[in-house]
């Protein structure tokens, strides 16, 4: 039997070693990631996009590469980006990431992008923005009135927004679908942690989401499309090896289980248990 400590060491090594020694396994781009990329790629320069940071700090290593890749694409395409947070911790993370990425592309605050800050009670904030964004966010994160921000002059509600992306680690994308997509019909996509991704496949199939980025793999795929390697691709080797190690650990656990069962069956011949 493997001890718990040995399993922990194996997992730690399987994550750490590939981060130091690059393996470079080829990554395939999935349809759902390509759809997000194409939805942004098809937008004309100056089109308005909305990105909502709907996550906590705990999932930062997984959601940050996705958010960064999407923001890079937006600034590369010279889109106008409205950002906000519907979870409190997403505020500081989103603001910093936005500032860093905007600096990479010399984007100007108020003209190319704006950060509206955080609003509690996601349902009413999402519904409210469908009527009038200024009513939900009269001021941006820096307490500047939206009336004084040039970029926001002609933007009233979702009608002017070409695509909304929720960068989330929970089920807030479902809230966006329920309250924004169902009622106001904007185009919507989400970038979410791998563990949550499967929950959103029904919305992809129904067309309520145009695409989806699932965890570090989603970020890596987006970076391939963007031809700009980042944190996603860097982490994929580590994720591949750690998945393999977990599979091998499970297989070994079953081998031990069946060997023990066989031994106990031999010891007690009256047993009628049927092995798999």
């Amino acid at each position, binding site marked *: 039997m493997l001890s718990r400590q040995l399993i922990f060491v194996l997992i730690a090594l399987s994550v750490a070693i590939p981060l130091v020694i690059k393996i470079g396994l080829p990554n395939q781009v999935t349809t759902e990631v390509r759809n997000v990329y194409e939805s942004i790629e098809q937008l004309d320069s100056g089109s308005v996009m909305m990105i909502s940071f709907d996550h906590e700090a705990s999932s930062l290593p997984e959601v940050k590469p996705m958010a960064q890749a999407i923001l890079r694409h937006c600034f590369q395409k010279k889109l106008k980006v409205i950002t906000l947070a519907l979870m409190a911790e997403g505020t500081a993370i989103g603001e910093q990431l936005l500032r860093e990425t905007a600096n990479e592309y010399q984007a100007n605050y108020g003209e190319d992008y704006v950060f509206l800050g955080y609003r509690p009670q996601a349902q009413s904030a999402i519904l409210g923005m469908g009527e009038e964004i200024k009513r939900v966010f009269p001021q941006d994160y820096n307490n500047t009135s939206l009336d004084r921000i040039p970029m926001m002059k002609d933007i009233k509600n979702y009608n002017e927004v070409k695509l909304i992306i929720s960068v989330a680690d929970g089920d807030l994308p479902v809230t966006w679908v329920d309250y924004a997509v169902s009622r106001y019909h904007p185009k919507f996509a989400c970038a979410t942690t791998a563990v949550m991704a499967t929950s959103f496949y*029904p919305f992809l*199939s129904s067309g309520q989401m145009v695409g989806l980025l699932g965890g570090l793999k989603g970020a890596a795929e987006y970076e391939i499309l963007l031809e700009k390697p980042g944190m996603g691709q860097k982490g*994929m080797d580590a994720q591949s090896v750690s998945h393999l190690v977990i599979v091998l650990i499970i297989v070994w656990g079953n081998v031990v289980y069946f060997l023990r069962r066989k031994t106990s069956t031999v010891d007690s011949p009256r047993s009628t248990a049927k092995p*798999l």
Partner: protein
Amino acid sequence: MQRIIPIIVCFIFGAFMLVQFFVPHRVSVSAYQTVLDWMQIIFVFTLLVGVISYVKLSSKKITRTQSGWGYNLIGLAGLVVMVIFGFWKGTGERTPFLWMFNTIQAPMQSTMFSLLAFFVASAAYRGFRARSWEAGLLLLVAVIVMLGRVPLGSFISHWIPDSANWILNTPSMAAKRGLYIGIGLGTISTSLRIILGIERTYLGKK
């Protein structure tokens, strides 16, 4: 009266939100926006209730030096320090608030989340046994999806990611859809029961 008034308020606002969806008149839209504003205002007060409750609970444990009171002290100190620096120096770039968030809170939370990988591996080793055909099938599906969702899967064979995608897009999605439809129907029936005053458990005990 303590029960009747909330039921009446609930009925009026529930019925209004239901009806206004189909009435795009400006009076209806204006009233709807006002309700949305109030929803946010009320929610902020619920946050305040949460903070007060946390402070009261922690203070009680600290003053009585109950088991684990040290953790409550650290939690309470963290809350107070963050609030003080947030109001005093702001939350923007190069502020103590942001420094504490980036160097203490975010790494701690990420660490907690990352620990899951270790516990999942350990639990999978101990619990994932092919004890029956059903368990064996579940095990096989889990292995295919785990390998199919990383580049290693396609490196071994294109069959692995293709199968993983089929599993996610067909049987898994069918189950999810069933769940979502059930949740949707349940939400509608519970909402109607609350609006009509049949379901009263949200009011608490008599």
